[in-house]
């Protein structure tokens, strides 16, 4: 048993820290720190800085232009980046499509698409969920019918995150209607400029524009845009679900969140004393902190498994369930700490107006409401329980 990083890993951590210290623009980290909404330019800018360092595609092997990091190195980077308030790397091209193409894509697809993900030429978004296919993803109905050298796509996708910035979308589509639903799904790449596509914003609970719905009407897509074989889409979708799960616990974000929550609870007062001295509130923080300390080790244990035995197993669903609940608890405690001052609805005139609300408090309640998504997306926590029940408990 040895819970510490090796000498090489510690050196790597120093290197990451120095890089973040030097290269992460303060305008970006400040926006992230106060929970502000990042513009497309902000995300592109951070991606370009990382790409220049060769650290953008953190999960890619070196042959495709990734840094070839081990799971532990990747974890160190994620943790340090969260600590430094770096913007999250937008995952759709880098963490989702990239690994899919590396495993299932043709040589041509890899050569053409992967470099354009790295240099920011393309912004990919995801077309998985449909109004009638959420947790039951395999029941998706968007049809792709072969017609000569094309597929013709009709249907609707939804919850397409940051689709408003995208020029490309990867979709799961139905290519066969008989047999098991899972066996008639294909994975296809679509240019969003193609005629017949319409993207509409979905306004979220806290007022933000983060996700979209995408409508397809007789959209003609070249057949070579298929990834893998026809009707192999479910295999690819499952691969995606088990890939890139090392950061699923969001431990770095939670550690940062804990620091901020404690600072907030020291700043605000109740009965003339800092809130953190109120035993009821301190007990709530302490219980969450203890769960987080355990989570950090659970995460490391699974990293260790990934590092020594290859891919992590279904037990990573534990990280998703527990990690999201911890973050949501932090958001809840932060909202309660602020009390009525959490209620003012974020608007432009609040920024830089400390007389109204402290900058870090502007998005307090909005963050709480927005992060209710954590236990819903990426396979809801109930779906994670179904997976664990079957794969791990064999029930």
């Amino acid at each position: 048993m040895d819970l510490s990083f090796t000498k090489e890993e510690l050196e790597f951590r120093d290197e990451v820290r120095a890089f973040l210290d030097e290269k992460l623009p303060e305008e970006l980290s400040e926006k992230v720190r106060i929970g502000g909404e990042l513009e497309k330019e902000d995300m592109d800018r951070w991606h370009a800085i990382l790409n220049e360092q060769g650290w953008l595609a953190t999960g890619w092997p070196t042959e495709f232009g990734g840094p070839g990091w081990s799971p532990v190195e990747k974890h160190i980077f994620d943790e340090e980046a969260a600590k430094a308030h770096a913007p999250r790397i937008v995952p759709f091209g880098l963490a989702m499509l990239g690994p899919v193409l590396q495993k299932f894509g043709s040589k041509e697809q890899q050569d053409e698409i992967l470099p354009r993900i790295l240099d920011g030429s393309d912004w990919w978004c995801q077309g998985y969920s449909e109004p009638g296919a959420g947790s039951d993803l395999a029941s998706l109905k968007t049809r792709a019918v072969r017609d000569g050298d094309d597929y013709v796509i009709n249907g609707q996708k939804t919850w397409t995150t940051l689709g408003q910035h995208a020029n490309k979308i990867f979709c799961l589509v139905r290519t066969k209607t008989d047999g098991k639903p899972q066996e008639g799904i294909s994975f296809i790449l679509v240019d969003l400029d193609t005629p017949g596509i319409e993207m509409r914003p979905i306004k979220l609970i806290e007022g933000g524009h983060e996700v979209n719905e995408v409508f397809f009407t007789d959209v003609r897509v070249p057949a070579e845009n298929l990834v893998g074989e026809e009707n192999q889409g479910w295999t690819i979708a499952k691969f995606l679900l088990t890939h890139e799960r090392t950061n699923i616990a969001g431990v770095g974000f939670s550690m940062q969140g804990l620091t901020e929550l404690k600072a907030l609870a020291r700043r605000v007062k109740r009965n003339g004393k800092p809130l953190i001295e109120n035993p009821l509130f301190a007990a709530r923080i302490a219980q969450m902190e203890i769960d987080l300390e355990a989570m950090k080790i659970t995460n490391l244990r699974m990293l260790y498994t990934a590092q020594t035995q290859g891919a992590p197993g279904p037990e990573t669903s534990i990280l998703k369930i527990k990690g999201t609940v911890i973050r949501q608890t932090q958001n809840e405690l932060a909202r309660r700490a602020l009390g009525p001052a959490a209620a003012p609805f974020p608007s432009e005139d609040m920024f830089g107006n400390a007389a109204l609300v402290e900058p870090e408090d502007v998005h307090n309640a909005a963050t709480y409401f927005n992060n209710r998504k954590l236990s819903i997306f990426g396979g809801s926590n109930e779906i994670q329980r179904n997976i664990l029940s079957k794969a791990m408990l064999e029930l």
Partner: protein
Amino acid sequence: MDFSLTEDRRMLSDSLNRFLADKYGFDHRKNVAYDAPFHDTALWSEMCELGVLYALAPEDAGGFGGAGFDITTVFEALGKGLCPAPVLGSLLASSLMTSAGADQSSLLDGSVRYAVAIGELDAPYGLDDLETTFDGGKLSGRKSVVYGGNDAEVFLVAAKSGDTLGVYEVKASDAQVTGYGLIDGGGAAELFLDGAPGTELIADARDALEHALDLGRLALCAEAVGLMDATNEILLDYLRTRKQFGVPIGKFQALQHRAVDLVTEIEQARSITILAASRIGEDDQARIVAMAKNLIGRAARLVSEEAIQMHGGIAMTWEASVSHYAKRLVMIDAQLGDEDYQLEKVMAGYAA
């Protein structure tokens, strides 16, 4: 980073697990754990021959272990086997004697059984409000629920001499010892000291006592992890085999999700126990051990109550093994500081 056990610890774990499975099986355990002396004294000797107690003490104190992970290795196996032997008292006593630099060979070879008497009725967990006194070579006061005290030959007693908390050695024959069994198996005693003669082991023992208690808490965490693993195994087996409405009850999602939640908490409990074991001897030992014991308290009760509920009526019977695991899992929280006591310790660090 390495989450595997060393070869030595794996061998210790394997041999203790095998020993307990062979000799301390559930039926035998049930027969001995609830009748005086509330464990099997013949098996105690055999366990000591296996080196169980030596594993709890460092080399310079005559043992071959004593590190956090040695303690967790032993106690996880004891938990898995639901073993009622009074090893906790031995661990606490060994730790105090190591701090004192005293010879503990008769403790480690199992020939003399020690119990450690710290808690009192109105001060069950901490050291601040203890009232037992040492004056002129004699001890006065009452120590409550002394683990293994029913069957101990020597007590190490925490008592105040003036304002200084010390540890004093008292022969069982010099004190009034009222032994009894515990609801979750194993034995304890009330120790009535009315001018009982004691010899000083440690004059100023606050740090030594805190350290011994931390090791004891770590041991209980590991025992709970073993208990939870065993309970979970029993539960999953039941969910797969017990049929109602024509199907195994494990097919019902209402139970599946609850079973997953138990596994999640068990893994969290295992993680924080590993963390606590790694922090023994470090600056944040007390804080991390408190965190571990808090989480363990919550997780163990959840596993216990859910295992009973999902078993249904059968878990209400004395016959079922799950009932006995469930009792131990709940009552372990009340040993050496419950979840609230530990939480307050963690919170105390926030004020600064």
